[in-house]
């Protein structure tokens, strides 16, 4: 049984090796994160200058949502986005072969072998925003139970967003030009900036049942604000497990095509 954590650690270490060499990038990347997040926060503040709540969501809650959004975005930029490009190239050039002859699960290797630690800046900033939002006060008190629920829902949300991305990435086995497909996913994910209740009902349904972005940002914050029933949490975990399973099936399907049809 390969030691997946040890392997992941080497990937992260190597990423730091690479990125740390470009010190100018360090400053600009942090600046970019701050600038981007400031813009997003300002946007939320503008809307709340005209309304006390958005369908029952107060300003601190929506800020916390933005924090979770930024955090998840950071995780995507750290672990997923760099690997997607590498993967599409790998299918095109055939270097995917090297991944396949290693005695480690190929989906795991493909998902994590090229990390970009800059995304972690977004993760930290996102957590910071959530912390700040908590300080300004949620309607309901936040205690250890809520934090636990939040952690579970966030973990489920992270797994869901990973499954969506890797599922879409497997399209590279068939068409190879995936950057456009990923921009569609990015557009859907951007809807996670606001609570899903802020959208019309039909959009809420799309974001819950078709592209389950609702589980990535809205539900974790609902859990934090004690507005998520145990049933909702369970549903969240179930959706995460199902989506992960589907993504592995899709991966295996794509792989079998690669190994039968390519030369």
């Amino acid at each position, binding site marked *: 049984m390969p030691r997946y954590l040890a392997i992941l650690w080497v990937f992260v270490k190597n990423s730091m090796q690479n990125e740390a060499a470009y010190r*100018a*990038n360090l400053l*600009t990347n942090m*600046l*970019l994160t701050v*600038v*981007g997040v*400031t*813009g997003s926060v*300002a*946007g939320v503040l*503008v*809307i709340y*200058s*005209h*309304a006390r709540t*958005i*369908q029952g969501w107060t300003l601190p809650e929506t800020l916390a949502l933005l924090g979770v959004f930024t955090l998840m975005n950071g995780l995507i930029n750290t672990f997923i986005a760099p690997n997607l490009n590498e993967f599409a190239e790998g299918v095109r050039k055939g270097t995917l072969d090297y991944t396949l002859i290693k005695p480690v699960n190929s989906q795991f290797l493909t998902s994590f072998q090229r990390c970009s630690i800059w995304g972690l800046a977004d993760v930290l900033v996102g957590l910071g925003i959530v912390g700040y939002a908590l300080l300004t006060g949620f309607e309901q008190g936040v205690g250890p139970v809520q934090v636990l629920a939040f952690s579970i829902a966030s973990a489920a949300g992270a797994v869901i967003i990973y499954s969506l991305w890797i599922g879409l990435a497997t399209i590279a086995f068939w068409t190879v*030009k995936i950057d*456009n*497909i990923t*921009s*569609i996913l990015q*557009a859907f994910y*951007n*809807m996670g*900036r*606001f609570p899903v*209740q*802020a*959208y*019309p009902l*039909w*959009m809420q349904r799309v974001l819950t049942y078709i592209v389950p972005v609702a589980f990535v940002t809205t539900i974790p914050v609902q859990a934090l604000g004690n507005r998520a029933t145990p049933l909702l949490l369970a549903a969240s975990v179930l959706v995460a497990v199902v989506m992960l399973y589907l993504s592995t099936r899709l991966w295996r399907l794509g792989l079998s095509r690669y190994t039968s049809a390519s030369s």
Partner: protein
Amino acid sequence: MIATFGVYFTTQWASFLAYRVVFFLYSMWAILPPLIYLAVWSTVAGAEGIAGWSEGQFVAYYLTFMVVNHLVGSIEIHTASWEIQQGEISGRLLLPVHPGIRTLASNAGFKTIGMIVVVPSVLLLAAIFRPEFHTTPGMVALGLVATIIAAALQFMIGYTVALFSFWITRADAADQLNMVLLFLLSGQVAPLVLLPDALRIAASVLPYRSMLSFPVELITGQLHGVAVVVGFALQVAWLVAAWFLMQFTWRRGVRRYAAVGG
């Protein structure tokens, strides 16, 4: 030069036929982000409306915004920056045609052909969200004129920012900053009238209102009388300023590029 322009313009048509899916997705770039704010604002406005704006008015505003956004925005600017960084522009500099012409032509071509995707999408959204327009044909016509000026302005500003690549390696940072300001001050987050005073003034002082919000305000009938004239004056002033800024940056940039080496 007209011939060159024509050539690059028509390559967009070929590109469209060859990569229909890509084209479709690129066109979504102008529509999807404003859609989020359309949805949120119309929910927030609800039955009573917000600050004198009804739900239908928000919808009308954002649908107009989407179309103008498509006609005015520029993706090629980002590739121009890339070209400079990669040194690919060396080859272009040797051609008897200003490299900007190529960028401009493919940009214009893309926008024209992209309407094939944008117009039906906006009509579909109109059927779903039901906009409320309070405007006159005259205002719409003026708005279209303003759109053309705004497109030119956005192209020039964007190109100038891209030219920063002659000096700094991370010009994408300047580009990002431009994008954030555009997001906040061009009317995407909220119609400018709903912004706090400080931001509203900044939007006019900076070119962002002239780049995107002004044409939308005209078409949705928000402006009357003097305000229209002032708005146009501001736009033209920025256009002239941007032109000189672009020329200046280009000349300086090429000189530095030749001195430093590709």
